């Protein structure tokens, strides 16, 4: 390889986010090519609105994956949080939101106890908890045979309102969370420990860290973020049914991986995940524009995620 090529590869490796942003722009260009004039302020506003719940859901996933774990219950938790929030709406907005978030933290804590204390593989633990959550939610919905729960106005505004005509309200919440996460991962002891645990559990123990404390806290944080994502999503679609966020499970992991976080833990960032979530949302928009049947859309969506993940490993030469 020539020196120049080597330098280019190195530049790409160090600034992978630039490549991701370029990909994002290319996808937008594709849409503009298919239907000239489609990419406008309104489109951007829509994309951001739909990316926000996914971005927040993938935020929790990012925290867990950096730590060397995975949480496959995020979508179930988001759905449950939204449903319970909606069902509690008649008792007041505050109570309904707190109830929804509580569900997230509770499930996260159980995940954390399973992984940290009982040493269950994160994949099994969270997958199983996802089933438990969904089953329980079904029982709950049958037991409380009220009318289909409605979404409080505050949540509806949070999920689909705009400021100045174009800026989604959910973007403010997402930006706030993003700032906390990006700064927190880099500049706090807790953030450091997530990377450290993901890199080498034994080394972290030898340095005096009690890993279970970090694991437990982090799964709880992931549960909380999942619940927040569920509430925002319920506001966006203005309804909360029993399969609200189910479709977002794969994208929540894909956004993390496309964003450059190692699935084996120890490296990555939330800024990457943000771009990953945007790419996936725009990709969805492209497929919708192509006007293909839903089944074909699913096939393409899955295939493109695989190609992106493979290309990523190839280009960046990650081990």
């Amino acid at each position, binding site marked *: 390889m020539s020196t120049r090529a080597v330098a280019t590869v190195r530049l790409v490796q160090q600034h992978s986010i630039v490549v991701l942003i370029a990909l994002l722009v290319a996808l937008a260009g594709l849409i503009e090519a298919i239907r000239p004039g489609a990419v406008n302020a309104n489109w951007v506003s829509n994309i951001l609105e739909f990316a926000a719940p996914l971005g927040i859901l993938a935020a929790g996933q990012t925290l867990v994956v950096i730590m060397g774990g995975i949480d496959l219950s995020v979508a179930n938790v988001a759905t449950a949080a939204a449903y319970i929030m909606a069902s509690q709406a008649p008792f007041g907005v505050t109570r309904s939101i707190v109830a929804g978030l509580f569900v997230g933290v509770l499930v996260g804590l159980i995940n954390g106890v399973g992984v940290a204390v009982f040493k269950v593989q994160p994949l099994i633990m969270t997958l199983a908890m996802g089933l438990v959550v969904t089953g329980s939610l079904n029982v709950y919905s049958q037991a409380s045979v009220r009318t289909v729960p409605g979404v409080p106005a505050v949540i509806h505004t949070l999920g689909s309102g705009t400021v100045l005509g174009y800026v989604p309200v959910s973007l403010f919440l997402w930006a706030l969370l993003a700032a906390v996460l990006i700064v927190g991962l880099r500049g706090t002891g807790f953030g*450091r420990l997530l990377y450290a645990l993901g890199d080498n559990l034994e080394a972290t123990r030898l340095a005096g860290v009690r890993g279970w404390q970090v694991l437990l806290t982090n799964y709880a944080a992931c549960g909380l973020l999942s619940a927040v994502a569920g509430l925002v999503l319920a506001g966006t679609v203005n309804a909360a049914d029993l399969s609200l966020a189910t479709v977002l499970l794969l994208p929540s992991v894909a956004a993390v991986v496309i964003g450059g976080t190692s699935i084996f833990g120890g490296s990555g960032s939330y800024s990457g995940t943000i771009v990953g979530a945007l790419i996936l949302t725009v990709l969805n928009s492209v497929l919708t524009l192509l006007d293909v049947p839903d089944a074909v859309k699913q096939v393409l969506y899955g295939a493109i995620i695989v190609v992106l993940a493979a290309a990523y490993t190839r280009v960046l030469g990650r081990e």
Partner: protein
Amino acid sequence: MAAVPNEIPDANARALLVASGLAKHFGPVVALRSADLRVRPGEIHALMGANGAGKSTLVKILTGALTADAGTITFGGRTRTFRSTSEARKAGLICVYQDPSLLPDLTVLQNLKLTATPISNFRRYLVELGMARFDLQSMPRELARPTLSLLDLARALAIEPQLLLLDEITASLPADLTVRVFNVARQLRAEGRSVIFISHRLAEVSALCDRATVLRDGKTVGVVEPAQGGEERIVKLMLGPVADEVAAEAASPSAPATGAVAVEVRDLKAGTLDGVTFTLRFGEVLGVAALEGQGQEELFNCLAGVRRPESGQIVVGGNPRSFHHPGDAIRAGMVLIPADRVQALLRQRSVRENVALPLVNRISRWGPINPRREKRRVETAVKRLQIDTRVTSEVRRLSGGNQQKVGIARWLAGGFKTLLCFDPTRGIDIGTKRQIYGLVKELAANGSAVLLFTSELPEIQLACNRVIVLFGGKLVDEMPASEADEKALLRAAHGLPSEAEEPQSQEGA
């Protein structure tokens, strides 16, 4: 061919392997600048160099595990570029590494079949290595490390290589097994085949090797005949301009210290460790001498809170302690430097994050990090250990010696009272070794207590004030460093009484 200083007159003799001008860099890091190596048929050739000099990279290029950026390799008269280790193996060039390579969960026989190793040859070499009765159905997971190294060697020999590379294979071997490896190497030489031998132990090199090529900073800096008093020259070449400085640091053994008691160990039992009692004082480096597996590992692990003792007491600062977690020991000021660097380091993370890890090891430290304060502490520690790298580089890109220094720097930044060093210089070059011993002495002189186990007995005197000797899990001897020469330690470590008590000692026993 590149001109090599100190080339021997018959340099034009037919060479089996000629490597010239090999270069390799990983991103911004230059691992090899310009390495030359010439190995004759029927020669045992040493490859020497400090950590980071480029030995490992050169070996990997020769065996096809890496491709060079520049330079040529001629093997058996033909210019070759091996694209994989199996290509090199087919050509008759194979390497045995320090770390065992058999898959732990397949039987030895299955391992051999996996690599298409001729079984009868393998058996024959096992006999020569003194393992005639070895059962091929054994699981590598259950075998001792030295046994695994010999199995690796026999597997390499079984393909009848023209050139065998031994990359620090003796680092984890006890003396009697090292002798067997030497005999096999000499036998290959007698058959006209060649061996490239890598070891940090100069004595081994001068006992075994015909010539030695010395690398420094990725360049070949000389070819020496170690047998003819070349040892000094090798050290000088390896270290370059810093040689004199290092020599000055290796001062005479220190006198026993008389500080306050730091740690008292009372009748400690754990696994092999069978009732050990001693005291460690502030201001001293207490050496622990022992052969492989005499309970020293359990001792260090108990003291560091990594495992719990079955009985006995650890008294720190006058109070009996029971450590449930390394964090408890660290709070009591006792920190461990393990032999295996990989165990202690975050390889994907930066030097800074590795060194600063103890600064965030409690819930009360989960909050915002003060970057200026952290930077200051990390930089002080990095400077003190002379880690020659940027603090932002990933630890896995560092040489072995620098990695070990990062592991030590962590505790200089984190703070401690008692340093537990378990074989901290395993597989580290002589320059770095002496730096580490110098640091350990300095720490003790400044009031810390240090417990130091090293598998290299001659080095006890370099660093320690006092030595305890473990044998069969018991403390069998204790002596001031001034009496602890290699011979005395070897006798004690084998459970023999000291010469003073047994006047009619057999010479060379």
